[in-house]
């Protein structure tokens, strides 16, 4: 852009930033989801036990920040997607791919609105009143995040980097 880099490179860089943020979010949420679904009783053990034994509450703010940043960068890329990706997808009759991308945008917003309660529940881990809600909202967000990531990955394979 502005003669420094091509439009193609510009959007590819933003797509890459979106990917890096999404990977961080996916890792943090998966750790947390494992910690609440299958809490480890001992810190040491095999790799799966150690994976589940993370101090899950410490991830809450990072998850919120990463979700918002990934959402904002994705929203920015979306403008290019609407013109340069979706129209060729429709012309190529990739309707399921296009439909799943729209599904992804809805899920991203549904996840976004859960963040205030999610953050509050995790910032009060000593309160047993929030245990079930904390577990439920964390698992829902983790499933959403995996869905968003996989759909984004498939879409990128269809027409993403360098397209």
């Amino acid at each position: 852009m502005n003669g420094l880099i091509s439009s193609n490179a510009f959007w590819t860089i933003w797509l890459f930033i979106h990917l890096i943020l999404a990977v961080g979010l996916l890792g943090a949420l998966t750790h947390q989801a494992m910690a609440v679904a299958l809490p480890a009783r001992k810190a040491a053990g095999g790799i799966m036990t150690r994976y589940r034994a993370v101090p899950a509450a410490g991830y809450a703010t990072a998850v919120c920040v990463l979700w918002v940043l990934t959402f904002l960068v994705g929203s920015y890329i979306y403008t290019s997607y609407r013109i340069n990706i979706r129209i060729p997808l429709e012309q190529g009759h990739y309707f399921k791919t296009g439909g799943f991308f729209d599904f992804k945008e809805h899920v991203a917003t549904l996840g976004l609105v859960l963040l205030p309660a999610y953050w509050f529940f995790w910032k009060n881990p000593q309160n047993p009143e929030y245990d079930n809600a904390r577990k439920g909202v964390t698992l829902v967000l983790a499933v959403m995040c995996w869905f968003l990531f996989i759909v984004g990955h498939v879409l990128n394979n269809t027409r993403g980097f360098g397209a």
Partner: protein
Amino acid sequence: MSTTATTNRISPATTAGSSLATSSKFKTFATIFSISGPLVYCLTVYLNWPVFTYWPATGRLAWGFGAASTSDGPNMTWYGWTLTTILISAGLGLMAMMLPERMMRKLPLALVWILPILAIPFVIYSLMFWWRLAFRLG
């Protein structure tokens, strides 16, 4: 070698200094915002109430809903739907903060994660035009 410490819990000290995390008003705002969010989003999509519409081909922005056109190209309403949802949910959250705390205690917190799951079938249904095209032409 192992320890008996449970490490996936955090001590109350971690939340010290965070006034939001200990505020009952914020708890009310956060739970009402998150509970109403999926409902408001579904309603916003169903009624097509974007705060604004964006046309990415020309960079045009307009209040409310605007259709795709030959001069401006395809329209984008998702940003507007998201903003509508945030504004209405935040408004509901702020109003709930004025209610007596005992009323909020009766609200099941499980709604925070149940309602987004219930919203998924509606979202899939709202994309029926894609699935129909895939079935007919894909």
